[in-house]
C-alpha cells in the first residue's frame, strides 16, 4: 500500500504544481526543443505515476511487490479470474480505472479524428483553390488581402501564405516566414501538438493539461524561429513577425488574455544568446530523471 500512496503523491505533484514550476523556467526558452521534451517527460512521468498508483492498489493482495504483482494480475486477467477474491474497494478502484482509461482513449481518438478530418478538408480545398506558388512544392498562395501565413501539419503538410502577406513583406521577409513554416514541417511539430490538445480535451481539470498545450505551442514557435534563423536572417524574421502581427485589426479586448507571444519571439530573435549545449544536456538529463522516478519507486517496492 505504501508504494501506491507514494506514486499517487508523485502523480499529484507532477501533474499539479510541477507544471507551474516548469512554466517559470526561463532558460528552457533558449533550448526550446529540450523544453518540449521536458514537458512531454513531465506528462509521461505523471501518467506513469497515476497508472502505477492504481495498479499498486490492485496488486496489494498478491503480497509480491509491484512488478511481480502486476505480472500475477495480468495472468489472472488472461485466465479470466480477475474478479475472484476481489474486495469491494479493489473492485471499485479497478472499475473506475478501466472506465477512466476507456473515456480517455475514446475522447482522444474522437478528437484526433476530428482534427485530422478538418485538416484534410482544409488541405483539399486549398489544393483546389489556392494559386500555384512560386515558393516551391507544398507551399501555396491564397488570394486574399488580409495578411496571414500558416502551416497545416499532417502526412501531406501545406504551407500557406496569403497575397496580403506577400504585399506587406519584402522578398527576404517572405523567405524568412517560409523558413519558419518549414521548420514546423521538418521537425514534425504537428505530431507533438495533436496528442496534447486531444488529451487536453478530456483532462481540462488536470493542471498540467491547462498549461502544457500552450507552453509547448510557444516552445514550438521558438523552435521554428530557431530553424528559420539558421536558414534566413534573424532581423528579417523579426521584422516579418512585427509586420504580420500588426497587419490586421487588433482582436477585441478581452479580460484575462495572456500577453501575446509575438513580442517575446521578437525579443528572443534580436537578443538571444546562442543555444547552449550545456542547457540542452541538463534538460535532457532532467527529462530522463522525471520518467525514471516512478519506475524506480515501483521497482523499489
Amino acid at each position: 500500500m505504501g508504494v501506491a500512496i507514494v506514486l499517487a503523491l508523485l502523480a499529484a505533484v507532477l501533474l499539479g504544481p510541477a507544471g507551474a514550476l516548469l512554466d517559470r523556467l526561463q532558460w528552457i526558452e533558449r533550448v526550446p526543443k529540450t523544453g518540449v521534451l521536458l514537458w512531454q517527460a513531465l506528462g509521461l512521468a505523471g501518467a506513469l505515476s497515476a497508472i502505477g498508483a492504481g495498479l499498486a492498489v490492485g496488486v496489494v493482495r498478491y503480497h509480491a511487490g509491484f512488478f511481480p504483482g502486476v505480472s500475477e494480475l495480468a495472468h489472472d486477467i488472461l485466465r479470466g479470474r480477475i474478479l475472484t477474491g476481489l474486495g469491494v474497494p479493489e473492485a471499485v478502484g479497478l472499475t473506475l480505472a478501466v472506465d477512466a482509461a476507456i473515456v480517455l482513449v475514446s475522447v482522444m481518438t474522437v478528437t484526433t479524428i476530428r482534427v485530422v478530418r478538418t485538416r484534410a478538408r482544409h488541405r483539399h480545398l486549398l489544393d483546389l483553390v489556392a494559386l500555384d506558388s512560386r515558393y516551391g512544392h507544398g507551399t501555396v498562395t491564397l488570394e486574399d488581402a488580409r495578411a496571414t501565413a500558416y502551416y497545416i501539419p499532417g502526412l501531406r503538410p501545406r504551407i500557406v501564405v496569403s497575397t496580403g502577406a506577400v504585399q506587406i513583406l519584402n522578398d527576404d521577409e517572405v523567405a524568412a516566414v517560409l523558413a519558419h513554416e518549414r521548420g514546423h514541417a521538418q521537425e514534425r511539430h504537428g505530431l507533438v501538438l495533436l496528442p496534447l490538445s486531444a488529451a487536453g480535451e478530456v483532462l481540462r481539470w488536470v493542471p498540467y493539461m491547462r498549461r502544457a498545450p500552450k507552453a509547448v505551442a510557444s516552445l514550438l514557435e521558438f523552435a521554428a524561429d530557431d530553424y528559420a534563423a539558421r536558414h534566413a536572417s534573424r532581423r528579417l524574421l523579426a521584422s516579418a513577425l512585427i509586420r504580420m502581427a500588426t497587419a490586421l485589426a487588433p482582436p477585441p479586448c478581452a479580460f484575462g488574455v495572456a500577453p501575446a507571444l509575438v513580442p517575446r519571439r521578437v525579443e528572443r530573435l534580436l537578443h538571444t544568446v546562442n543555444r547552449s549545449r550545456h542547457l540542452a544536456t541538463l534538460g535532457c538529463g532532467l527529462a530522463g530523471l522525471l520518467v525514471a522516478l516512478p519506475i524506480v519507486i515501483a521497482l523499489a517496492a
Partner: protein
Amino acid sequence: MARLGELERKVMELLWSSPGEPLTVREVAVELPHHAYTTVLTVLDRLARKGMVERTKDGRAHRYSATAPRDVYTAELMREALRGAPDSHAVLVKFAETVTASEAEVLRSALGGLLEPPTEKKPGSPKTAG
C-alpha cells in the same frame, strides 16, 4: 492520387472560368486533351459528390457548373485560418497571432529600429559611426 487532385483542380479552374455557363463533360474534356472522357466524368462526379460542382440536366446531356465562385472558398479558408476555434491550434499553426493595439504600438516602434540597415549587410556602403 496526387494526379487526380491536379485534375480536379484543372476541372474546377475550367468551371470557374465560365461562370453562368455550365459546361458539358465533352466541353470540359476537350480542354484537357491528355485525359480520357471517362476520367473527366469521374472527376466531375467526385466533385459533385463533394458539393463543389452542380449538375443540371440539359436535354440528353448533363451540364456542370461550380457551386460557388473561387473567392467564396478562399474566404472560407481564410476564415478558418484567422479565427481562433478551439481545435484551430491542432488543425493549423499560424505564423503570428494578431497582437493587441498597445502591443502593436510597441512593436511598430521596435520595427523602426530594426529597419535601420545593419552595417554588415552591405559591404560597399559607407560605415556609420556607432
